[in-house]
């Protein structure tokens, strides 16, 4: 307990341990990450390809996702931000770029880091590719990808015009 202005502060840590299940519809996606393949799933209703396959369902159609679809590995930045704010647990040197990346063949974007270029050079439409960690560090996780880096290909038109009103 600490005291300020006569008011006590009661330390009350809480913790609970769960056995977390990723669910059956995430299995092929996570297996894919174990051997370096990016596997999403297609909705049998609207045909959109989800990567990652969220909770195994299409939120537009309220249906369980269907066939596996291999996507990427290259993709396009759909939006991004430059992080300058330090926070608890931060592992990356500031400033860095967090971007939404639409992998080739997928219909929803995923979030990852952009490195190996200046933050100021990152732009919507920029083509990027994954940089994988050493295979010995891999698990069933998108953290197998250290970050994405520019490929040098021409930008893709994302239907966003600079200065358009």
């Amino acid at each position, binding site marked *: 307990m600490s005291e300020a202005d006569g008011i006590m502060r009661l330390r*009350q840590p809480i913790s*609970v*341990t769960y056995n977390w*299940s990723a669910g059956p519809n995430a299995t092929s996606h996570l297996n894919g990450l174990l051997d370096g393949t990016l596997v999403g799933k297609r909705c049998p209703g609207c045909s959109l390809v989800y990567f990652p396959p969220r909770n*195994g369902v299409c939120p537009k159609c309220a249906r369980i996702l269907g066939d596996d679809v291999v996507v990427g590995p290259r993709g396009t930045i759909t939006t991004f931000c430059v992080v300058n704010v330090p926070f608890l647990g931060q592992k990356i040197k500031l400033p860095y770029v967090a971007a939404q990346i639409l992998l080739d063949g997928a219909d929803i974007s995923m979030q990852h880091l952009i490195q190996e270029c200046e933050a100021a050079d990152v732009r919507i439409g920029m083509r990027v590719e994954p940089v994988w960690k050493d295979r010995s560090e891999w698990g069933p996780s998108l953290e197998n990808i250290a970050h994405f880096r520019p490929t040098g290909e021409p930008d893709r038109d994302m239907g966003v015009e600079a200065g358009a009103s």
Partner: protein
Amino acid sequence: MARRDVAIVATAQRPNEVGSTLTSVELILPVINDVIAKVGIERQKIGFWCHGSCDYMSGQPFSFVAAVDAIGAWPPIVESHVEGDGALALYEAWVKIQTGECDVALVFSNGKTTSGPIDRILNLQADPYMVTPLWPGFDSLAALQARACLDAGVLSEADMAEVAARSYRDALNNPIAYAKENVTAEQLLARPYTTAPLRAHDCGVPVDGANAIILAAGDAARSLAERPAWIRGIDHRIDTQRLGARSMTESSSAAIAAAKAGVGDDRIDIAELHAPYTHQEILLRRAMNLGEGTHVNPSGGALVSNPAMAAGLARFAEAAESVFSGSADRVLAHCTSGPMLQQNLVCVMEGE
């Protein structure tokens, strides 16, 4: 403002299980699609969606936001969430319909109760200064209440075992019930204490489950169901959170809620009571004055399958189904929340 006539017109529940490997979203989605298919309504006609769940069950902050993935929220919908049992979400949906803002509402709830230590997790609902730091667990708090009832002569261990035996036997006829057994009270009394004076059969079995209910007003209800279960009264009352300051041997909040809901106005054919502990069923029957003519928990109740945050709405589903089928005319559905029957929601439904 005149009160609108509102009825339950359809229900869906998934079989209760232990150790489900589905995500919460995968758990919910099929029951929502089932209940919609039962009434054959277009999704867009559902004017309000209300969800009851608890993030601490799944161990995922804001898991209720992810749950929106299960309801097909496109084009955008009107949606709300209650951090509690689905029965409390049903109450919110009933109020929403009363405001006139919608005629049809869908209520759903889910509990992945077995992926974490549920007895420890429920502690987080308790008084954070005086109770949670001791980590008593809800079984031991219920056991304190049971002992007080035993000491006061309100009930006996045999009475408690009788409740369990009847529930386990009734569950044999319920395909979605988890625990079921052809057993007698004498056999149960021969089993050891877990948290004395409670034995294993005195405590509801934690399971993973999900359910959904469609509510509709007036003509909409008549067009969606042959025999809607009309809500004639509904009321929610809460006792003080101070465990020592409320009676251990009676439930005043349940008694008040039952009186306000009109339980005593006529006979009750079936009462689905959300009693996670055997002695609590007896306390609830006494508080609501339920007599011999009322069949309590023909589904087996929360003793045989207790999906946390969904077990109360399950009582509404079971009670309404007995009206749909014509096996009952006037039924009671109840939901409790918090330790030792702290909160009680009581609803009376009738067929026409």
